[in-house]
């Protein structure tokens, strides 16, 4: 039998190999690369979820309603009203960057325990930024 006829010429072999490589890399990225990116995003979302659940668990142990979370912050008291505390605070993880914010105060007795200018640690409870209220305050 004449084997020569069955052997592909070198240029065809090279072409096929390069095509395989290009298609392999392309499909590899389309599949695995994009999947890796999606997994990264999922991982971040899961981590945020875990942190959220942790805050909810913390809120739950202190008698909060279901779905409420608890955040911890540090800051300086700037103004005190019967229902409101204005605090210049550091970043509150998962809620706010460092700035001055007014928070609803759940207990009207807070204004007796702190004064303007006091450095404090405080706990917030709520479902979103707008309904987060100060539930505990202690001097820093």
């Amino acid at each position, binding site marked *: 039998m004449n084997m020569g006829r069955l052997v592909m010429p070198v*240029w065809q072999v*090279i072409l096929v190999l390069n095509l395989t490589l290009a298609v392999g890399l392309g499909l590899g990225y389309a599949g695995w690369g994009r999947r890796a990116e999606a997994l990264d995003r999922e991982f971040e979302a899961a981590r945020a979820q875990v942190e959220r659940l942790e805050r909810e668990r913390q809120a739950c142990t202190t008698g909060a309603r279901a779905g409420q979370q608890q955040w911890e912050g540090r800051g*300086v008291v*700037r*103004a005190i009203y019967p229902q409101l505390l*204005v605090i210049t605070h550091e970043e509150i993880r998962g809620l706010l960057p460092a700035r*001055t914010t007014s928070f609803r105060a759940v207990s009207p007795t807070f204004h007796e325990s702190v004064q*303007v*200018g006091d450095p404090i640690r405080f706990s917030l409870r709520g479902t979103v930024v707008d309904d987060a209220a100060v539930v505990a305050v202690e001097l*820093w």
Partner: protein
Amino acid sequence: MRLFLLAVLWVHLASSVLPMGAFFMLVLAGYSRISTARQWDQTVVAWSRLLVLVAIGSGIGWLLLRTAGFENRLQAALEPRAVWHAVLDTWPGLVWLARHGLLVVLTAFLAMRANVADKRDWIAARGEALALAALALVLMSGSSHAAAITPGTALAVAVDATHLLGTGVWVGALMPLALLLRAASRGAGADARPYAVRAARRFSGAALIAMLLLMASGVMNALVQIESLAALVGTTHGRLLLAKLAVLVPILGLALMNRTRILPALSGSAGRAAMRRLAAFVGVEAGLALVLLALAGAMTLSTPARHDPPVWPFPFRLSLEILTDVPATRWRAWLGSQLAVVGLVVLIASFLVSRPRALMRAGALALVATGAGVGLLPLVVDAYPTTYRRPPLTYHATSIASGMAVYREHCAACHGATGAGGETSAPPPLTSPSTSRRHAGELFWLVTHGIPQRGMPGFAERLGEAQRWDVINFIRALGAAEGSKTLEGQVELDRAWLVAPDVSISVGPLAPGVLRDYRGRRMVLLVLYTLPASRPRLIELARTYDVLSVTGVEVIAVPTHRAADAIRELGASPPVLFPVVTDGERDIVATYGMFAPGAHAEFLIDRQGYIRAIWRAGGGGIQAQVEKLNEEKAPAPFPDDHVH
């Protein structure tokens, strides 16, 4: 160790560049059935096979040495875990892996001795080898200095990749071309002479394009990595580039002669002799190109010029500021520039006329030289090795206040408390525009070594380096304070020049911020206040804070006295909600007090970080000035964080 590293890098660079160029030369010369050409093809492929193996070997050596460098201990080079970590967990390691993967594939490809007698097979085989070698070379830019540039990483890497590709095409192809020319110039190689002539002509065209690409990408690389003339002549990286250019000049001369003289003579009657000469010259060019690669390797190992403090090598520099300070120099500069322009025009004209060229050119050069002498000599000023050093400390209130204390102790006796001169001696005022325009590095040299002929002592022994830079920051602030006397409570549109010294803003025990954080986001009204006199004004600001805040202004209050209790001291009614500095106020008051020394002062700082208005007693009418700034169409660029 460094020399060994350079040697390994050079071998790796050369053995990566040469095969790529070799396959490029083969593809460029084209397929041929002539026996001398086929023999040349076989020789080049055999050499390339060997060089790729050398590239892999030296690449492994390079990796081991780098691992030892990363881990900072020599034995790490022999620990599989350390090497594994360097390859898989670092970006340069991954690039290394990709490149060497390609080199291994290329080795395997070259090891397969497939039958390429057919033209299409030959083109495919050589083209494939070229593509693999080129890819392995170009990927090198992924872990070069260019990859560390942000922003614009992609552009910098693309430019660097172009530079590498140009190098491969030009440097790598020289040696195979010399081999072909030598083979064809021999008696036995007569059959390949037309083939060799065609190859040389094609290479000449390709090399011209490669050289233009190399120069363009080289200039772009240099602009990004070197940035200034001082960095070019004053740093190792810059000087290596100059050395590279110095080697490039004879190469270009040779290339020009080959292209214009020898190449046309190849097909003439003395073609064989011309071919032999061309082979020798191309060989010399290739040798010089290898020197270039060694210098490029050394540049890779050196710190990029932009990160290295330059050491100015000349005792003089040119200063355009002289034109402002000494009006008499203006006419000389004008006359000199005109003479030089006329000289250049005559020089250009000499290319257009047939005779008398030599005379015209000599005259033109004489005019340019005279023009330079007349125009440039008055601009020459003294310079020192540290003239272009950038201060390591930013223009920050803490540094300025420390500088003020050092100044009062060591400098005020001669220079006076305000820098205008002391009672017994009269050095030039430190607040004069000419002092303000001096480079910070120049002042650093003068403070360090003194000016013996004028009786100023050096302070290298008495003051630490940081203290000397503090004094320079203070002297800059002195000059700025002097210039700011005309600045009042009215914003002048599009005239931002007074840089606001940075300050730390500490409110209670919270993590402190800095003034610079507001740049590009909000204006700042910095208020220095003293109680009880400032109370009415603070109450007014507290009441209008919401309006100011909405129009883009942050108010930052700084008490002029001990401030730990400052917030409590201001009281609860009306509530003061803007930041009140409770720590580090002394430095801020000392620094900003230089601009406005009263008990109450207000500074309006725009979004770019420039002081635009100063109220030296009380404040008021701020809203109108804020609106003016909000209407400004073309804000000034952000000021440098360091004085210069």
